[in-house]
């Protein structure tokens, strides 16, 4: 698994997209992820499912980047949902109570279906 964060957008409709993240989401990569959210929403994708299936580790800055993305999407009338989080990211969502803010889904397809 690469340590640099990689992101890509997979459109699933006019305003729905999956954001695939891969690598370590921490203070070294948080700014890139915030920018990826800003670009996705600017391109009309206000409903986003973040695929964390290939994110090996997340820290407080990584969580803040997701919160920033959530705020950006909500300001556009949308939402951000989180799918396929592994052990460490799930543990941190729970520790920080962000599992009460983000809807967490076991799979990406569950996240997409959650919007329908």
């Amino acid at each position: 698994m690469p340590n640099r964060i990689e992101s890509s957008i997979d459109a699933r409709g006019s305003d729905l997209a999956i954001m695939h993240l891969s690598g370590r989401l921490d203070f070294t990569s948080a700014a890139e992820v915030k920018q990826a959210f800003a670009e996705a929403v600017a391109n009309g994708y206000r409903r986003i499912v973040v695929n964390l299936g290939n994110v090996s580790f997340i820290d407080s800055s990584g969580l803040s980047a997701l919160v920033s993305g959530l705020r950006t999407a909500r300001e556009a009338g949308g939402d951000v949902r989180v799918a396929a989080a592994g052990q460490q990211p799930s543990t941190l969502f729970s520790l920080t109570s962000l599992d009460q803010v983000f809807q967490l889904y076991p799979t990406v397809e569950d996240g997409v279906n959650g919007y329908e």
Partner: protein
Amino acid sequence: MGTSRLKPLIETEGEVEASAVGMDRVHDLLDQYWRVAGQTLPVLPDPTWQALFNSCVAEIAGNIVRHAYNADQSKGDTMHISLRCFHNHMEAVLIDQGAPYVPVSETRSPDMTKSVDSDALSQGWGLPIARAAGDGLHYARSVDGLNRWCVKKLLPS
């Protein structure tokens, strides 16, 4: 709370560049530590426990890179990391020669839901997370200018 004086069952240590790039090495050290632990201990703590310990170490290391040093200007600064296992706890000791830590008066809980409605609350969660994920976080500045962080986490009984 200082470092345990008993001989550790396991110790993995290394000198790590105190920079964003150096965070790769922090995670390599953690991987190495858990590999040795898996070969040494009869039972490993569960994955949630391991995730919390790793989060403690990474948050403190990240704090050093960003605040003790300037993360954007790597000048060959380093930090020394020791990961140790004793019979009833694990601990991480991180030592650097950067700027002293300035404690904030507020001791926050790691409840990041507060940050959802306020961009002003988007930072400063690293140490609250490290504190909550471990069972004791201690910082000291020595007279010769070393910052020393020690986090302990009790092993499940």
